[in-house]
């Protein structure tokens, strides 16, 4: 199956809406099965961040930072209809779940090749680049680390 340019535009909007609503909560994360292929790969071009292979492992990462909630807003979308792939420049906002305070904002640029699975197109891989902030600035990892540290201590 293939999507037209306009169908891809709609699909991309729906994907980001679904991510923001369901993509970081273990109770709802499997709604994202509509968008991520089983063999999904997260491929970050960030030296200290490792690749993640498999949708279930990806979901563990997404749900591993409950105190910091990421809201993604696509600001620019590049659709390669022939290749059935897209690129999005994304504004990422990281919010503190308890205080409702905005902790940081940065931009991502990500490539999303799609693949057919179960009769629909899904994200096969996420090639991920992010804005490099000044040394010492609060980073996404600093916020996520609050939960990761707690999880390591409880293990």
């Amino acid at each position, binding site marked *: 199956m293939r999507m037209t340019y306009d169908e891809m535009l709609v699909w991309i909007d729906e994907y980001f809406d679904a991510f923001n609503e369901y993509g970081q909560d273990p109770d709802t994360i499997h709604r994202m099965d509509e968008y991520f292929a089983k063999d999904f790969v997260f491929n970050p071009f960030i030296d200290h961040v490792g690749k993640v292979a498999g949708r279930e492992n990806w979901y563990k990462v997404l749900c591993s930072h409950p105190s910091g909630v990421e809201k993604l807003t696509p600001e620019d979308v590049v659709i390669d209809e022939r290749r059935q792939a897209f690129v999005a420049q994304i504004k990422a906002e990281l919010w503190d779940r308890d205080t409702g305070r905005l902790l940081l904002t940065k*931009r991502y640029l990500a490539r999303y090749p799609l693949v057919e699975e179960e009769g629909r197109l899904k994200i096969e891989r996420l090639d991920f680049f*992010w804005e490099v902030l000044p*040394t010492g600035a609060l980073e996404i990892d600093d916020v996520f680390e609050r939960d990761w540290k707690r999880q390591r201590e409880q293990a």
Partner: protein
Amino acid sequence: MKPTYDEIVKWMNDYFEEYNASAQSAETVHRMDKYFAADLTFIPYMYVFGGPDQAIKSREDFYSMLTGHPEDYEKFFVHDIFVDDERMVAVAFVRATIFETATDRVKVQKDYLPLYELKIDEKGELKIALIRFFWQAVSPEVEASAYTVDASKWGN
């Protein structure tokens, strides 16, 4: 007339070939006029170049940056190009190798993901109007050892 998908892919590959040959020497950089609009905007999403609030807003200023690090030079190898022919936008996934000019020693290799907004200029020629520039995030130490950047130019 709007270029086709295949024409944009070919044009972008030609652009990278010319970039490798000409873009980092003051004697040859104006060969890049074929590719860059005079009012080119370059938005860097890395703080070493001042971040997105420190965009470069002309081709000549961009050339000053490209030719302003004679101690090293970079060569691009194109992994892949995505094209949105409806919007005339291309995104290139490239491997950059940075060499020390005096010795041709490889200083570092990293991947870049630049987005190019294209336009047809007043002469009917395809040009790069805007670049949104993202690169692989490496440690500050690696960054410092790889690039000769006059940080004072970028408000650092």
